[in-house]
């Protein structure tokens, strides 16, 4: 991928890294291959995939997930419909690598001593992805794929658990 990272710093100034659909190739490859045909978005039953805005520069119009608004529910409908290879046609939700959730201990209710396990209950991948530590605080595990459901359901005003988008594509 020659020349792909040349403008990454510019984009990082304008907009945060986008959370890509499940099965997305590594970010640079994805941005190069996605022809913005809209087919992944059209097949998503939850309307999770929205086109990236102008702040994403040349990547405007590529699909992304805004987890706090509508997360990915890992139905795995979109990867097989991609006509350009920007999404690998995977159907196993555990092979997804959209990102990894991160807990902010300063705002997480469980960390502040308030009983809350909303994210742990709602995680579509269960304890393999998001469990609890000895003090009943959420604990992100290896199995987290970054779907963003936890970020969506977190009851704090600003989500205390957010997904950090991966740059990596499918988990080997």
């Amino acid at each position, binding site marked *: *991928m*020659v*020349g*792909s990272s*040349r*403008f990454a710093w510019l984009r990082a100034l304008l907009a945060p890294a986008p959370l890509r659909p499940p099965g997305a190739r590594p970010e*640079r*490859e994805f*941005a*190069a*291959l*996605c*022809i*913005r*045909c*809209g*087919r992944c*978005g*059209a*097949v998503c039953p939850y*309307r999770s995939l*929205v*086109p*990236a*805005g*102008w702040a994403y*520069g*040349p*990547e*405007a*119009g590529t699909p992304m997930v805004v987890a706090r608004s509508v997360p990915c529910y890992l139905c795995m409908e979109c990867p097989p*419909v*991609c*006509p*350009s*290879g*920007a999404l690998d046609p995977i159907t196993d939700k555990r092979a997804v690598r959209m990102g990894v959730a991160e807990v902010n201990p300063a705002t997480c209710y469980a960390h502040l001593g308030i009983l809350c396990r909303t994210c742990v209950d709602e995680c579509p991948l269960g304890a393999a992805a998001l469990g609890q530590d000895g003090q009943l605080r959420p604990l992100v595990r290896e199995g987290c794929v970054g779907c963003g459901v936890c970020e969506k359901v977190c009851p704090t005003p600003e989500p205390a658990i957010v997904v950090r988008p991966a740059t990596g594509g499918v988990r080997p």
Partner: protein
Amino acid sequence: MSPSEPGSRRWTRWRRLTQAGVALFYLALPWVNAAGFREVAGTLASLKVGPVDLTEPVAALAAALAGLTVSWELVLGVAPVAALALLAGPVFCSWVCPWGLISEGVDRLRQRLGPRPWRGSPWVGVRRLRWAALAGVLLAGALLAAPLGALLSAPRLITTLPLEAVWLRVVSPVTGGLLGALLLLELVGPRRLWCRALCPVGALANLLRTPRTLRVAWDPARCACARHPSCFLRCPWGVDPRQAGRYDGCSNCLVCVDGCPSGALRATASPRQRCDESNSGRGGEE
């Protein structure tokens, strides 16, 4: 194909029918998909028809150049489209593209409000611009590692609009903004500049042809017009079918054939004939 009667609208009627059909198809598709039928889905960038993917060639080429990789998905998707284009010749812009329909409509409206007939040889003026625009958008996409040719495709944008509006219930500022800019260009810019010179999809569509694809043949022996032929003046593309070369942007709308008062123009798919040779003698056809 036999010459049509002078002043008939034989070809134009069929053409409006297919243009409207394609536009209605992409307008209705998001509703059909939303109702649960998913076997046919997509836009003019990529359409799924059952198990077959049809991918627009410029989008695929732009993606391959941006990623410096050739994915087999793209090759498989482009193959049927390119084969169709090579069989039929450059018909996409005039017979299929919904933006072409809008552009023609806006142009006709502008001509009604304040006529600005074609002058000189406008098809020569946009020759270089067309190739430069296609090469420029592909090159810039390769440098930015993003398929700009796909982003800036008017047929993709106009068929994405109903998809976003119906399915996401919002028009993204990207799709809306680009379409707004295109419409502004149609409204105040030079006549049909986008379609004639700037659209990457149209530029490539004009290249995908063989000696056996559809084109307009001119018979100088029958031609009765002198300096201001109705074929040239009525051409939505600013092309004089009597002088234009093979790659001068004719997209086989056949308005000239319909309008020819002397039957000197006809649509043909057979390779060069006598009348073409005399045509090339006048420095047109290469």
